[in-house]
């Protein structure tokens, strides 16, 4: 009988809240259009809330078609008059400035990110914000070196990029989109997610402070209709979208026959594969990080656990134990592991899948943790005895829900892992090097983590196979989607 941890009162943590007092969130934000904050043409606004408390944080302008048109024109004008004619080294210097200013204001960005999106402060502080700054820093250096990225081929910028980002990594996704676009000489119109506009607007402040020429970056807050107006605007040359596969397909369809090019970073349903020779304690940490990082609101989340039969009981027992120690609650607490679900709407979606998974015949397991009264919360959840045809195995849930299946042979694991329409990422845990490369080669996924999971870096290309979208962000490969070849 294995030693069991006692999770009773010895495990109480003292609260360790991050202070938000120094963070200035304005009561109202306009659209960042042609270098200035301004109201939407319609005067419409919408509120943004803290999903952990349901308290209103700010009110932001709601961009309509007129505003999109003005922003695209401002971006085109900036492309023609300032950004494209500018010496590439100077474009790089502006990007370096942005990177530095994000670093300088990193604590403020981290707090704002956590307040607006509900993610644990330790994640926004240690991952989102540093990576966003690093992304600008990395691409800054490419601005005057593009001829080395594409030897023997003459490249020119595309023009105006329309960029639409999701709510799970608001500032980081803005950095992933804006940095390579600007480094390659394009100007941009960015639409942040409706639920999480604040850090993009703070980034607009940084861009203003950095002195970028007016119109090079325009940030329009709004909802899906704003995004649609941007995608369909004839004045953009490029669509860069991160979000759901369903919307990605709509975009590909709606720009068919036009001159616009697209990169799409869409959904995923990654398999995290545990082989019987894996270092199990490390693997369990990898599984936890894979699915519960950012409440599972991660397109590359390891949302399917494939565990080899011989170690399945042991791994599941360890997982259940580990679940008991996860701290769910106040995202502003520095000890919190799982913060708030991003929105009421997303919580409804996740709860729908929790119900569905049980109806399909999988067994649900959740720890006995208490949840705050206000806000949107979901306990970390395991589904045992899931099967390949279950919708909780095939569909992206985008929440802290792990579907567990077992397998006997490596070939079976590969077949199961590849058997969804997605192909964004995968994880492998084994002690054997040759087996790692057998698996990494045969898994149809754009990013494969072996004996680790959910690692990101500006130098490392990220993007999917199959219905997880196309194009890469990050690294040398992340430049190509923002240039035209002569």
């Amino acid at each position, binding site marked *: 009988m294995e030693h069991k941890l006692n999770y009773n009162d010895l495990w109480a943590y003292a609260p360790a809240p991050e202070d938000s007092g120094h963070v200035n969130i304005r009561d109202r934000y306009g659209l960042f259009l042609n270098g200035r904050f301004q109201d939407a043409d319609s005067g419409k606004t919408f509120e943004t809330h803290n999903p952990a408390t349901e308290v209103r944080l700010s009110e932001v302008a709601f961009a309509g078609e007129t505003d999109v048109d003005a922003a695209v024109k401002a971006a085109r004008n900036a492309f023609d008059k300032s950004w494209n004619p500018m010496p590439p080294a100077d474009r790089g210097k502006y990007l370096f400035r942005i990177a530095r200013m994000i670093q300088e204001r990193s604590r403020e960005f981290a707090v704002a990110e956590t307040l607006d999106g509900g993610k644990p402060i330790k994640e926004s502080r240690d991952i989102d914000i540093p990576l966003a700054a*690093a992304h600008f820093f990395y691409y800054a250096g490419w601005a005057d070196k593009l001829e080395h990225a594409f030897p023997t*081929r003459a490249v020119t910028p595309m023009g105006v990029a329309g960029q639409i980002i999701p709510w799970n990594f608001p500032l980081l996704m803005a950095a992933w989109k804006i940095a390579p676009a600007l480094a390659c000489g394009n100007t941009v119109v960015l639409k942040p997610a409706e639920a999480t506009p604040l850090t993009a607007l703070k980034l607009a402040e940084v861009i203003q402070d950095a002195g970028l020429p007016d119109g090079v970056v325009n940030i329009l807050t709004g909802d899906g209709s704003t995004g649609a107006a941007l995608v369909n605007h004839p004045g953009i040359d490029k669509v860069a979208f991160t979000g759901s*596969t369903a919307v*990605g*397909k*709509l*975009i*590909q*369809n709606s*720009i*068919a*026959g036009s001159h616009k090019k697209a990169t*799409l970073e*869409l959904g995923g349903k990654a398999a995290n594969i545990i082989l019987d020779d894996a270092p199990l304690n490390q693997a369990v940490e990898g599984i936890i990080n894979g699915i519960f990082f950012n409440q599972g609101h991660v397109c590359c989340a390891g949302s399917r656990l494939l565990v080899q039969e011989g170690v399945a009981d042991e791994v599941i027992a360890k997982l259940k134990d580990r679940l008991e120690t996860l701290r769910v609650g106040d995202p502003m607490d520095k000890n919190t592991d799982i913060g708030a679900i991003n929105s009421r709407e997303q919580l409804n979606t996740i709860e729908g899948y929790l119900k569905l998974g049980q109806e399909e015949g999988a067994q649900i397991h959740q720890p006995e943790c208490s949840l705050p009264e206000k806000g949107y919360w979901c306990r970390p959840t395991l589904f045992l005895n899931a099967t390949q045809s279950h919708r909780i195995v095939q569909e992206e849930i985008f929440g802290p829900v792990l579907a567990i299946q077992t397998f006997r042979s490596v070939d079976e694991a590969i077949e199961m892992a590849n058997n969804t*329409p997605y192909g964004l990422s995968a994880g492998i845990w084994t002690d054997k090097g040759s087996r*790692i490369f057998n698996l*990494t*080669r045969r898994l149809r*996924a*754009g*990013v*494969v*983590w*072996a*004996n*680790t999971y959910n*690692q990101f*870096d500006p*130098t*490392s*290309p*990220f*993007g999917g*196979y*199959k*219905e997880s*979208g*196309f194009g*890469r962000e990050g*690294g*040398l*490969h992340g430049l190509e989607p923002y240039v035209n*070849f002569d």
Partner: protein
Amino acid sequence: MAHLDIPKTYKLFIGGQFPRTESGRSFSLENAEGGTIANLCQASRKDFRNSVAVARKAQAGWADRAAFNRSQILYRLAEMLDGRRAQLVEELNFQGISSVDAEKEVCASVDRLVYYAGWCDKYQQVSGTVNPVASSHFNFSVPEPMGVVGILAPDEFGLLGLVSLFAPVIVGGNTCVILASESKPMCSITFAEVAATSDVPAGVINILTGFREELVPHFATHMDVNSIVYAGDNDPDVKILQEGSALNLKRVRIHRGVDWISSSSQGPQFILECQETKTTWHPVEVIKPKTGGY
């Protein structure tokens, strides 16, 4: 005594075999004087689907072959094609191409295969990267085949267009289904005979003859095709391909206004446009402090 010609039956090329279209339909090709040169198969949706099925089946095995082996097979294709030069020039003549231009096209086709044969074990090195991530991980990115590629060959070059598009696709470990030039389809089937005798595994190259108008929508919407490569300038066709491709997020590559005779119409970019990028991470052990030397 004069020898009585035996006209060739032009059939489809699917899975290494030469079936007639399952639809039993044909269309005739006429010379400038209005005489029939040949009757070709008018491939159907079902023929296309059969081709995709065999291409899918062949793909993993083709991609698993050593790059050196693929290289030799491509080179073998060039050898076999060179041996058929006279026949292909004659066929191009029949289809209205002058002898000078026909000779040029056939030579360029042979040279293109030789060119791409040499790329099989090199494109990985020019497009792969080792990425200097900030954490303690070894991280690298390599190109991998997309899978099954649908190719719509350009109309104007019956042989060279087809070769220029499929060679880089199969160099990269993909398999393909090609819709040959509609107005100059003869050489595509003769080329299939070259492919059938060149150690190219069955199903890697599949060639259909038929009508764009009928088949383009099926190329666009087939759920087991990963990518579409199209050469031409028919805007409605492009739109149909791009719209239909959204069903399963096919990667659509459009080549307009390319001078296929020119050597500028070849290059690693044609290989890489049908490649995915896979990035692999693995931790690097950290035991000693960085100041220590082994």
